[in-house]
């Protein structure tokens, strides 16, 4: 079992001309393989910062990130091996694939970079990965990203993330830019893959409903601080923190009476 420890991480950005901005303030959580954590919060709460720190696109100002007890290496072969274990699926299916390269190229690169399979088997592995995300390899493999739909692109992004056989998957709002009708399909795919591969998934979202559907545990983030943490049902059905309550109140509920709502009308 792989354990990822996010321990007391603080991240402060220096904004040119406007002083400092504290994106994360003493954030701690533990992610284990085989479990999904939902990270919930509005825009600007620090969710993407956590994703960037995990993928080493940013470094924490203070605090530690430990994979199986060892701190994340800064460079060299050790960093490469760490990167192999933790992969990310980005939010925007239109922007996360290079418009100039074919789908085959996108999935080949991590295979070649990490030497996951011998060179002779690369093509077969690419096709296998495409099938795992329920795309037809023959149709898709030679196309460029702009020839695919949003849902298909996101599946390709997932296949690319899985190519190096990681233990942890960070999904940064993977469905918020997709049509509502196909969101469930992609989320169910993620859930199946998580079960089959025994991945630990950090599911970052601002949508409470899918967080509850998909996660074992939920963490609520507000302006860089964790305000609530617990099992999915606990947090959604019995929220303690006022911010969590506001979030829940802001979710559209067809049964709710308008007159009974509070005058603040939510934070969005």
């Amino acid at each position, binding site marked *: 079992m792989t354990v990822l420890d996010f321990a007391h991480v603080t991240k402060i950005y220096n904004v040119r*001309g*406007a002083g400092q901005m504290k994106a994360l303030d003493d954030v701690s959580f533990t992610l284990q393989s085989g479990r999904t954590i939902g990270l919930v919060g509005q*825009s*600007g709460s620090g969710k993407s910062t956590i994703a960037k720190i995990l993928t080493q696109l940013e470094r924490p100002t203070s605090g530690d990130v430990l994979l199986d007890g060892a701190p994340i290496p800064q460079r060299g072969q050790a960093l490469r091996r760490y990167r192999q274990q933790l992969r990310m699926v980005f939010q925007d299916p239109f922007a996360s694939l290079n418009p100039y390269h074919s789908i085959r190229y996108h999935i080949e690169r991590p295979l070649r970079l990490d030497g996951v399979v011998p060179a002779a088997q690369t093509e077969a592995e690419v096709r296998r990965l495409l099938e795992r995300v329920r795309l037809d390899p023959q149709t898709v493999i030679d196309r460029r990203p702009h020839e695919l739909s949003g849902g298909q692109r996101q599946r390709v992004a997932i296949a690319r993330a899985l190519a190096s056989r990681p233990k942890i998957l960070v999904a940064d709002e993977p469905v918020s830019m997709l049509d509502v009708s196909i969101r469930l399909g992609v989320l169910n795919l993620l859930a199946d893959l998580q079960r089959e591969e025994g991945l630990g998934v950090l599911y970052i979202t601002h949508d409470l409903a899918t967080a509850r559907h998909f996660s074992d545990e939920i963490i609520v983030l507000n*302006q860089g601080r964790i305000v609530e943490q617990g099992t999915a049902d606990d947090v959604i059905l019995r929220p303690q923190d006022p911010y969590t309550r506001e979030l829940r109140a802001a979710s559209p509920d067809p049964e709710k009476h308008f007159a009974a709502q*509070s*005058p*603040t009308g939510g*934070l969005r």
Partner: protein
Amino acid sequence: MTAVQPQLTEPIEPGRDALDVGTTATRAVHGRSRVPWRFLGSRALFYLFTLWAAITINFFLPRMMKGDAVTQYLARNRNVSPEAADALRALLGLDTDKSLLQQYLDYWSHLLRGDLGVSLLHGLRPVTEVISQALPWTIGLVGFATIVSFTIGTVGGAVIGWRRGSRLDALIPITTFLSTIPYFWLGLLAIAVFSVNLRWFPIGKAYGVGVRPEWSLEFIGQVIHHGTLPALTIVIASLGGWMLGMRNMMLTVLDEDYITVAQAKGMPNSRVLWRYAARNAVLPQIQSFALSIGFIVGGTIVMEMVFSYPGIGKLLLDATNAKDYALMQGVFLVITISVLVANILADVAYAFLDPRTRQTEA
């Protein structure tokens, strides 16, 4: 185009909302930071650096020339006063007994005193005097023509962009073609047609031969008469660039949703065109205007040669041909400083026109 996300300045309590509390966006609306000091400050720093770079290039220019050319120059100006000779040596690098650093410092001390040496070509008059006689002609004609061209081009481009798909679209390739014609050839053609054949305008110069400059109506009339053809050719040649840029920007802006909202609100078309679309489209125009000032200066030199106009462009060419190094250095310096000043003015205008620069100060 990304927008700066307004940040809440205080946490929200029940009963208040974002507008009450105030975000960075609303603070700009309430006018708490009008002057974008940080933006202007960084630009000022850049311009100082560029000025230093230009002066240093100027310092090295004559020192790169062949030695015998400079000694010839020294041999030619016998009747120079000792102070003037001193200045010349410092400017042209003839005092080889001093170290390079010492020469550099001497050069700066001469500059700061306003001493640019004496001009061989103009009877040993101080270079500053020669340049200050020529400079107003250039600034007057070229400045006027450029403003006219920019205005017509921008307004025209806005209208053409608004009326896309109409016959006005044909103006774009026409004006672009006129811009790709080499300017000097256009000027020569204009002279051939309008001055030689039709005799509507005089052939060159700023005023009649043998006429003394004075503030009389007749003299001003002559100046306008002589200046019309050069100004006209400048306007025709540069119109295409402004029109094309503005029209392209308009097409991009008109696709934005806020234009549709404005029209759907029932706003009259003229307001949408000018207060909404053109107002936003003109911002990159001002930036490209600032960038093109250097090229406008280049065009001046050509124009003044073709029309024998007594501005600093012609001064530079005459100095180059006569190997009057002090004058060459001086004109280059003045040209560079003028370009810098024009850029600063454009930057200031841009800083005040673009609300985003004001907002990021908050």
